[in-house]
């Protein structure tokens, strides 16, 4: 098991290098630092001196990947590639284009993000699976048909509608919770409820339909027939046997959801004014802060690879037959 994890982590390294090279090419080769400086300082009236100063302040005045003027190892280390890309591997994010410490910002903004993402993920999964099991229990009846129709309709509704509609209905008309804002600790629960509910409801349609398909595939297998033949109740068959055996496809589905959790939080946090990583990224996009964006791309890929690894490990827990070869 440990050797498997070590191997998987080792396999992640070339992928992260690839991610790094892609971001490096996107941010520094396709666009020269000169272009970035012009974008930030304005187009027409900018002087060459101001551009040079802007570049020097951010360390963008070094050569791209090879410094011919330096000596020894510095030929490699005194470059933009080393300073701004290789350092990411040590989780040293450097400074944003506006001069703030990105690493510190991330460590501060992580917690509000988690406060939203974890309930959305955990409660959402529980609610979706429970509802899908109920729908599977009523398979072939009118309840099933109408549940599927509702799911298809819910899938066609834009995620923006859930957010705007939720804010309008709950926040503005009913005055149950504040429309947006954030406060740490238990006092802040009132700020978290609405984004979490909206996050869950928004993915309900697709989720129920997906898990229902998984359960219906399992229901036609032999072990289910055996369980029924033993005289188990339909409920026991579904909630004990089918649910446990469906865990592997469910886990695979969860991985599909994890990256979209990142995307979802981006919009949700911006709408609800939550000072998390999602709104941080949106702010960076709108202020055209390339340094923050580069760090978030790297961080996002690391998280994605970690999630994949966790899924594979959890396979062994839910199914002893899965072994790491």
């Amino acid at each position, binding site marked *: 098991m440990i050797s498997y994890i070590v191997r998987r982590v080792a396999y992640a390294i070339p992928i992260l290098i690839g991610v790094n090279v892609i*971001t490096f090419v996107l941010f520094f080769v396709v666009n020269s630092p000169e272009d970035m400086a012009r974008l930030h300082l304005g187009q027409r009236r900018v002087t060459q001196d101001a551009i040079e100063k802007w570049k020097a302040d951010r360390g963008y005045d070094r050569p791209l990947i090879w410094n011919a003027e330096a000596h020894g190892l510095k030929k490699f280390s005194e470059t933009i590639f080393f300073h701004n890309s290789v350092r990411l591997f040590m989780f040293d994010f450097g400074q944003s284009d506006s001069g703030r410490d990105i690493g510190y910002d991330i460590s501060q903004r992580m917690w509000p993000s988690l406060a939203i993402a974890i309930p959305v993920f955990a409660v959402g999964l529980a609610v979706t699976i429970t509802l899908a099991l109920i729908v599977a229990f009523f398979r072939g009846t009118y309840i099933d048909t109408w549940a599927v129709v509702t799911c298809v309709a819910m899938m*066609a509704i*834009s995620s923006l509608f859930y957010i705007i509609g939720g*804010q309008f209905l709950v926040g503005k008309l009913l005055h149950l919770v504040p429309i947006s804002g954030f406060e740490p600790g238990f006092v802040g629960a009132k700020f978290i409820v609405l984004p979490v509910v909206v996050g869950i409801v928004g993915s309900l349609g697709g989720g129920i339909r997906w898990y229902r398909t998984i359960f219906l595939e399992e229901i036609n297998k032999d072990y289910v027939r055996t369980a029924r033949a033993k005289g188990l109740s339909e409920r026991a068959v579904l909630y004990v046997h089918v649910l446990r055996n469906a865990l592997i496809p469910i886990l695979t589905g969860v991985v599909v959801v994890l990256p979209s959790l990142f995307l979802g939080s981006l919009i949700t946090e911006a709408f609800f004014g939550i000072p998390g990583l999602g709104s941080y990224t949106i702010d960076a996009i709108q202020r055209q802060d390339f340094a923050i964006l580069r760090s978030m791309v790297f961080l996002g890929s690391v998280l994605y690879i970690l999630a994949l690894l966790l899924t594979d490990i959890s396979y062994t827990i839910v199914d002893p037959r899965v072994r790491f070869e």
Partner: protein
Amino acid sequence: MKFTLLTTDVLFFGLIIAAGAYAWYAAGKEHLRAPWREVAKNSFATSAAAVLLTFLIIAILDSVHFYPRLDQVAGDRGKAHYATEVISLFDRVVGRLRSQVEKTYSAPFALTAFSKETIELQDGRSVRDYPRLRYGGAHLSEACERGLDIARRALGGALWAIAIWLCIVLPILYWHARRWTRAWALATRSEINGGGLIPFRVPLAVTAGIAVVVGVCAALAPYYHIFGTDKVGIDVFYQTLKSIRTGLIIGTLTTLVMLPFAIVMGITAGYFRGWIDDVIQYLYTTLSSIPGVLLIAAAALILEVYMVNHADEFTSLVVRADLRLLALCVILGVTSWTGLCRVLRGEAMKLREMDFIEAARAFGVPHTTIILRHMVPNIMHIVMISIVLDFSALVLAEAVLSYINIGVDPTMESWGNMINSARLELAREPVVWWSLLAAFVFMFILVLAANLFADAVRDAFDPRLRVIS
């Protein structure tokens, strides 16, 4: 009129011609005709197709662009002058809808503006009141006539629509009846009761419904603002209709960009295995481990930098917006081919072990021929399913991306831009809800139709995926 082709127009028409060529090709091949017949038997699918076709017609009309000819100036004979602004055939069709611009917000079917203004009366006094709109309901002299007038016009529009619908449907039914049975009344009855080869009842009802909606809108839109007007007074109904083209272009052109990557890489990886497989697998794992939205944001920012630094290359706003739309499609396509590529690689790996491929290899058929003749036709159903499944996701993604300002150009009509510019209006008192609702309703209809159609196509082309129930 001087016609002009924008880049997306060319690609969009190319795509439609390609789809037409596919239809012509598939009509001659029984194995391709069979699954489509299966789709046609699904009444949800045919109804959805009718809705999609309506949207497509609007998008096609909106893709024929031209510079309108200006009126002749006296003394300047023989020389034609053209406007500098590009408009589309659709703008000509809707006519007045485009030019009826009010001052600012007005509610759906309103006769007066949304906010009070100081109005000068004829005797010199001035009062603060809601001013009458310049165009919305301007033909009415009294406000109380409105209800009756709307009902009258709506009824007229509906009757016209039904008449035109009958003119189209009756010959088709007649032709169908002649083809299958001789007795026309009998055949019609059996068609309507759903006894025919293809169930006609639901699609007939849906097309009649569409015809009535279109007729009523066409009758009312020149006289009222059906969905109200937005902040600068532009008719929201017109904006929503213009957004259809943007949505359809993103949904289709992105797939066009994505397909070559996915098909070529997927098949070569699965067929050749070895180091080619390793390289391609590494490539798509790396790309898919970057959160998609960040990659899109990064690429969009870089595009922004390029456009700012090369501002003089873009001759007009329309060309600029159009190129930005195309760039968005390319970016979305480049970031989204990995999923399909993985599936195709798996399928190609399965196929290469099949007897017929092995036989071809034993005969010494070259690799390219094997891939083109034997592999590609056998993975096409997966490609087809993926095209229709991706479409609705892309339409929804456009709205989200435009909200973060990395979507289409702000000057281009799109549902995302409508939502983006209207989201602050909910904070007003009283609420300005019509722009948001119009955008969401149209998006909902398009995506729902696309989803239903996609499900039917998936079931028909890949029976293994069909849900057992």
